[in-house]
């Protein structure tokens, strides 16, 4: 479904991704591991086109998407839950969700209403708080809102950048349950995590990124046992 080949991305002259190749197949949960500053978020931004790649290709459903504007990439079915959630603090929950559908300008209103209902079904908490400002939600609720907002563009591939970041352990489990649930309904997911053991227990396959290069990839269960993973994602050695 998604295929990166030799992707190089730089900020200014400094290359951050130095030839990343990875693949996500339809229906999978793929986990991208790596220590701090290894380029995980940059990989996500490159796929979504908010930062353009310098070299390499990105294919989605067999078509090149590198170089396309973000709006077009979102319209084709990729959506990102950004690192740190980044919900719109002074907009209501409802407005945040509607904002997620920004690229669906031709969608009839009842279709959007239907999608909102589906998201409220997934996150009943959001329905209760739909007129509350996003900034007043708790961390866990904000994460649900960020996921719900990303789903409003009707993606087929959901990118998630450290969805467990800054959440209490109980909430981390909840978020991963949600990811599993969304996946079981047919969503393909590429998730970035520093929390390797939890992430791998849910993913089908995983990649380990280090200094802008993929240094390891395997089935999740195999990675979970691999000695090198702990070292890699801790950024040691």
């Amino acid at each position, binding site marked *: 479904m998604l295929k990166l080949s030799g992707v190089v991305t730089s900020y200014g002259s400094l290359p951050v991704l130095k030839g990343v190749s990875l693949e996500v197949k339809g229906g999978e949960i793929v986990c991208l591991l790596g220590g701090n500053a290894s380029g995980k978020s940059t990989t996500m931004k490159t796929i*979504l086109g*908010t930062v353009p790649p310098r070299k390499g290709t990105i294919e989605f459903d067999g078509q090149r998407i590198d170089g396309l*504007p*973000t*709006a077009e*990439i*979102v*319209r084709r079915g990729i959506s*990102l839950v*950004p690192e740190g959630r*980044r*919900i*719109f*603090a*002074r*907009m*209501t929950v*409802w*407005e945040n969700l*509607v*904002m*997620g*559908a*920004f*690229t*669906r*300008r*031709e*969608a*009839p*209103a*009842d279709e*959007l*209403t239907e999608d909102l209902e589906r998201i409220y079904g997934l996150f009943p908490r959001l329905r209760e708080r739909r*007129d509350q400002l996003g900034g007043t939600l708790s961390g866990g609720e904000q994460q649900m809102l960020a996921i719900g*907002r990303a789903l409003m*563009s009707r993606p087929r591939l959901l990118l998630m950048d450290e969805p467990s970041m800054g959440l209490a352990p109980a909430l981390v489990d909840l978020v991963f349950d949600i990811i599993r649930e969304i996946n079981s309904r047919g969503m393909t997911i590429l998730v970035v995590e520093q929390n390797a053991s939890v992430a791998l227990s849910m993913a089908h396959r995983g990649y380990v990124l280090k200094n802008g290069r993929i240094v390891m990839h395997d089935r999740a269960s195999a990675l979970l046992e691999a000695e090198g993973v702990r070292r890699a994602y801790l950024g040691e050695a």
Partner: protein
Amino acid sequence: MSLWMQRTALFLLTLAAPHLVPNDYWIGVLTRICLYTTLALGLNVVVGFAGLLDLGYVAFYGIGSYIYAFLASPHFALHLSFWVALPLTVAIAAVSGILLGAPTLRLRGDYLAIVTLGFGEIVYLLLINGDRPVNITNGVNGILGIDPPRLGSLTFSRNHEYYYLFLAFLLLALLISTRLAHSRIGWAWQAIREDEVAARVMGINTTKAKLQAFAVGASFAGIGGGLLASWQRSVFPDNFLFYESINILAMVILGGVGNLAGVVVGATLLVALPEIFRGFHRYRMLAYGLMLIVLMIFRPRGLFEGNRVGRREPETSTLEEETLSLVEPGPPVGQ
């Protein structure tokens, strides 16, 4: 009283206003209220809607005034009609908004404020020094003898005539602002104001949306500048001091950033209060300053709740209506 009746009453009041004030001087004050409200509505698009703190807004006001003066005065012996010169002025002001906006696209908050402040000063210096080596702006002497607007057989000369002209443009600015607040681009601006990175993730072309905000803001300033030149019949660099940027910004903040009714009230108060305090003679500006401080202490978010664009009024709009405003074809921001 229904919203519609309130609006009608308010509109009739603005029509009758010149006949309700004691003298011609006050009709001039009313005219200035219309002028500054138009300017404040323009700055509100940039600061209130898109969240871009622009401290050099007076630059566009100055550019508008001078362009109008160039097009309709003996200075270049061009005597274009008001109805031709003003649209041209607005177009040029909009382009200047894009040109001055473009270098600031990566800047936010304080940095944007400093750079725009610099632009305001640069334009002022250009106006003052623009008489050498080639005389373009006529330097400190300004441009005199600007043509008054004509409409049919009427040549504008008296304050109440200008008042109705200015009021018409104010209403136009208000109408455009209202439409923008509830349009796709209004949503895009609001998202950018809240979180630019997230806005980009939603598929909003933030570069384009910000330039559109600068262009719309500068257009309103262009209208204001053209109106000022045609009313004052002369323009001078000192009409466009930094103080004016702050004054207009204060109008936006006082009423409630992003809130249209607030901007109107803010501009009205800030033009009218110094006049009301005239009786205090030299303590006039002191009284005015104290008034501002007291207001901001008791209403820190402005007289009206600010910071919300295209606010959903639960009783007046349904979910469907608002959703439609998001998906209806508008300017192609998300391209």
